[in-house]
């Protein structure tokens, strides 16, 4: 028994000391700094600034989730059901962005959307617009950048669900004369619903704690929860508020993950 414990314990001690204990420290901070009790939570959930940020985060994350999962569904369809060559090309289109650093991808969108970027230059050269359209430093850019980052993550659960679809059911529907559209709406979509649910929860969880992309593409104009926490630590030090917001975020994400695991257990008995 002893030697085995010697193997198992180091990582538990390591994470216990450098992750669990400091996290408990943050929980403690949220109840004590500067006022003891629930004052910080009251502030976080009633202050117009932070309520505004929470509202914007929820709204943008919902939009991002819908955009990402819809786009991912379309491209996964091709990845799973296309001819071998199409499958190969689609896989490259998914995997290359997936492995590229989040900073390069955010910079790519800046190159694309900024006032002297590709899109504005093209539109001006074509004579469609007179002066540059502001496409960065706003919520539009944040949604575009975050969706771009999260589409590959939505692809994986969708691909699993699509690969599990029984081909014979589709053949049967086809044989009984259902149109392609009808096969998709009444057979394929319901059969991949578990994948859609999984992808939706996964993307939403990921998006809600996002910091880098919104900070770069939003340019300080559309602050999300994660950036607010950063500001409360480094710009206007209010550690108690940052701690309380972190705890709220952790609870929200924990709740969604619980749902995700419950769903997973339902699907695989």
């Amino acid at each position, binding site marked *: *028994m002893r030697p*085995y414990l010697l*193997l*198992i314990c*180091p*990582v*538990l001690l*390591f*994470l216990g000391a*450098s*992750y*669990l*204990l*400091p*996290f408990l420290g*943050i929980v403690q*901070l949220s109840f004590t700094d500067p006022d003891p009790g629930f004052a910080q939570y009251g502030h976080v959930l009633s202050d117009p600034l932070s309520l505004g940020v929470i509202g914007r985060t929820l709204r943008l994350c919902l939009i991002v989730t819908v955009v990402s999962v819809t786009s991912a569904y379309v*491209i996964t369809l*091709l990845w799973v*059901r*296309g001819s071998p060559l199409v499958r*190969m090309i*689609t*896989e*490259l*289109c998914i995997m*290359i962005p997936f492995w*590229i*650093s*989040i*900073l*390069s991808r955010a*910079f*790519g969108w*800046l*190159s694309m959307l*900024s006032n*002297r*970027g*590709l899109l504005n*230059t093209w539109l001006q050269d074509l004579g469609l617009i007179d002066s540059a359209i502001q496409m960065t430093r706003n919520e539009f850019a944040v949604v575009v950048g975050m969706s*771009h980052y999260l*589409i590959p993550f939505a692809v994986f659960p969708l691909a699993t669900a699509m690969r599990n679809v029984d081909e014979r059911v589709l*053949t049967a529907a086809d044989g009984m004369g259902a149109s392609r559209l009808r*096969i998709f709406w009444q057979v394929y979509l319901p059969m991949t619903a578990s994948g859609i649910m999984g992808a939706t929860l996964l993307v939403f*969880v990921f998006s*809600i*704690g996002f*910091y*880098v992309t919104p900070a770069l593409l939003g340019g300080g104009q559309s602050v999300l929860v*994660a950036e607010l*926490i*950063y500001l409360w*630590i480094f710009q206007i030090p209010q550690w108690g508020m*940052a*701690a309380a917001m*972190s705890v709220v*975020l*952790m609870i929200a*994400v924990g709740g969604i993950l619980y749902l995700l695991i419950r769903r997973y257990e339902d699907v695989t008995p």
Partner: protein
Amino acid sequence: MTRLRPGVIATLLSSLVALFLLMPLIAVVPVSFTSRRYLSLPNGDWSWRHYQLLFENPEWGHSLMTSVQVGVLASVLSVALATAFCVGIWLLRPPFAMLMTGFVLLPMVAPPVVSSLTLFFFLTQLSQWNSLIAYDTLGGVVLAHMVMVVPYAVVVLMVSLSQVDRRMDLAAQSMGANLFTRIFGVILPNIRFGMLGALFLCFLLSWDEIGVTLFVTSVETITLPRRMWMGLRDNVDPAIASISVLLILVVTLVILARAAHLWRKVRGPS
């Protein structure tokens, strides 16, 4: 009966999504050749100056070294810890194994900003006691990255170990092998590819890590992503375009090479 292939509409929509996914990666290329100091397209005057700058400015080389050091240390230490943990769980099959694994996976599922705040809090506390593993030091960044990548190593190794045949270990045991021989002579050789995969994944994750690094460094220890961040945050520096083009090129070449290899295998020798 042939499979139902995606129709015209699905193919068209997918192409749009594919275009959306690749567009920003392509947009970086012309920007990196601009002759100006701000983000713009080259107007007939293509220039290599931002690439030159990468090699001339010692700060970039310095950050590259920092990133490599952090990546190597964090991945080796994480995989060592994760291997010990996974082998221990596999051998002992203790009660609460699920709970322990869940705990180890926590940094992977928690929102990155919460992990960042936690590690910032921890390292600033440590700074009062020592200067080796502290806020804005190499040791501190390595520790923070280890916390973030250990869960991934555990996942990869758990999958790898689940494919090892327990009867091999039983055979070794019945022939009198002690624990040391069982681990180093039987189990580890059987999961060597899993360990290599875990090392590679951990290095890549540490190499790209920015969320936590932003919170635990300021001016002394600057990894490559951290330096890119500095060039992106205030006024956008086209040098970021040139380094991005280089990074995108490397990733694309590796993935294309792998794809070509797989494609040949699927097609068979021709």
